[in-house]
């Protein structure tokens, strides 16, 4: 099916009135949006604006205090907030991927690169060693990690390689939705560019949807179809990415856009 046809279907994820509080402090509140198959949603906002809190609530790492997170599972629409913990974990293994800002949070540092990727396949039921190893080598190749590094541990990799390994580990199971918290933060510019290109290709070829948190407006312009701007836990503006960046409507977004040189 073409991406065009997919985009006409129902949302993969529908978020309604989502809120998370830390005691009296707002983590995020009043968040609502639909994400369709094949779409990339960017989330930007200043430090402490609630981006990671929101992403964690969406991915089931944090329990929101209010609201719905409806995901189009293979068994139909389900509110992942109300789901039993075991069912949510299963969904996290089969349908979702979560790319952490720090690769150490998303990798098993004591396990080889190949093992990091293969482990995810085994978690969803793969048992044939040869096939697992082939799939791992194939995915390492896609993220440009040479086959002769497959037995090395991630601790022997550079930061950029670790981040690419984390992406391979997350995508090998063919998830439908990828959450990324600052995936290119801390990488040098040329590694960042290669990663961006890789992500764009994967979105196009696998039709996957992604929600990507970043502080880099140039990155969202090149990667995200739609953009959400957060401030103080609230979404102050959302829309088509180039519209939000070129013709920002909210006071805060105007400040954000005008404070960077050229995006």
């Amino acid at each position, binding site marked *: 099916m073409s*991406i*065009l046809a997919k985009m006409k279907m129902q949302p993969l994820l529908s978020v309604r009135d989502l809120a998370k509080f830390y005691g009296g402090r707002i983590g995020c509140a009043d968040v609502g949006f639909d994400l369709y198959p094949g779409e990339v949603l960017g989330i930007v906002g200043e430090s402490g604006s609630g981006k990671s809190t929101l992403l964690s609530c969406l991915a089931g790492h944090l329990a929101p205090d209010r609201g719905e997170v409806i995901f189009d599972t293979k068994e139909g629409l389900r509110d992942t907030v109300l789901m039993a913990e075991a069912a949510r974990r299963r969904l996290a293994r089969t349908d979702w991927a979560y790319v952490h800002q720090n690769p150490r949070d998303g990798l098993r540092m004591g396990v080889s690169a190949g093992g990091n990727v293969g482990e995810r396949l085994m978690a969803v039921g793969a048992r044939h060693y040869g096939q697992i190893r082939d799939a791992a080598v194939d995915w390492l190749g896609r993220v440009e990690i040479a086959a002769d590094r497959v037995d090395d541990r991630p601790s022997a990799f550079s930061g950029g390689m670790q981040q690419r390994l984390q992406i391979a580990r997350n995508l090998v199971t063919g998830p439908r939705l990828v959450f990324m918290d600052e995936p290119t933060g801390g990488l040098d510019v040329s590694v960042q560019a290669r990663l961006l290109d890789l992500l*764009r290709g994967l979105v196009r070829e696998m039709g996957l949807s992604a929600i990507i948190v970043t502080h880099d407006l140039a990155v969202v312009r*090149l990667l995200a179809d739609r953009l959400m701007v957060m401030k103080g836990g609230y979404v102050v503006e959302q829309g088509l990415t180039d*519209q939000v960046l070129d013709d920002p409507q909210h006071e805060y977004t*105007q*400040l954000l856009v005008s404070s960077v040189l050229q995006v």
Partner: protein
Amino acid sequence: MIRSTNIPSFWSPRFCRCDVITISNLSKSFTLHNQGAAVIPVMTGANLGVAPGECLGLVGASGSGKSTLMRMIWGNYLAASGSIMVGDVDVAKAAPREIITLRRGTLGYVSQFLRVVPRVPTMDVVAEPLLTLGVPAEEARARAMALLAQLNIPERLWSLSPTTFSGGEQQRVNIARGFVHPYPALLLDEPTASLDLVNREVVLTLIEAAKARGAAIIGIFHDEQARARLCDRLVDVTQFTPKVA
């Protein structure tokens, strides 16, 4: 002047004389929140239509709103009121998703400056719109290479990122990207600026071919000869500039 644009034959422009792009009563203002919330009205009551195979030139003094009008059609500037029909989509009211779909297959845009992911080879930059439409990679590459050759981009540059190219080379890559798919509607912002005579001629020929296959084109051309050769009609956007009270 109300013309129906939402009939299915839109997709075969040769058999349809209705407008591909119809703008009605369009207005635009900017609110500068960080400059005392100043409201700057820049356009009011804009109307125009472009038929298949027609090229409409936007003219008017610097700052009169030519680029603003074009960006509202592309959807990166929000309209304050009015409608912008491109095929059967009203860009002024459409959801982001609908605009993304429109940009994939129907509406092409050659902006003044190229914006690309660094490190991506020129060939892939040009082929990308086709890949997004699901064209097989080999065919997309072949079409990209044919256009790059036609636009005189030396073959040794095709595997390099265009980020380090000269201004004129970048502009030609941008043009190749905008012409690689036969969009029924095309927006061209200064496509011949900073090109030498030979390449200017190639670009003019590409635009004429797009007209001949039925594309509806809106262009901004400071190059008067290009304008005279390509444009069937000119619209002076100054007439849409709000009168200061």
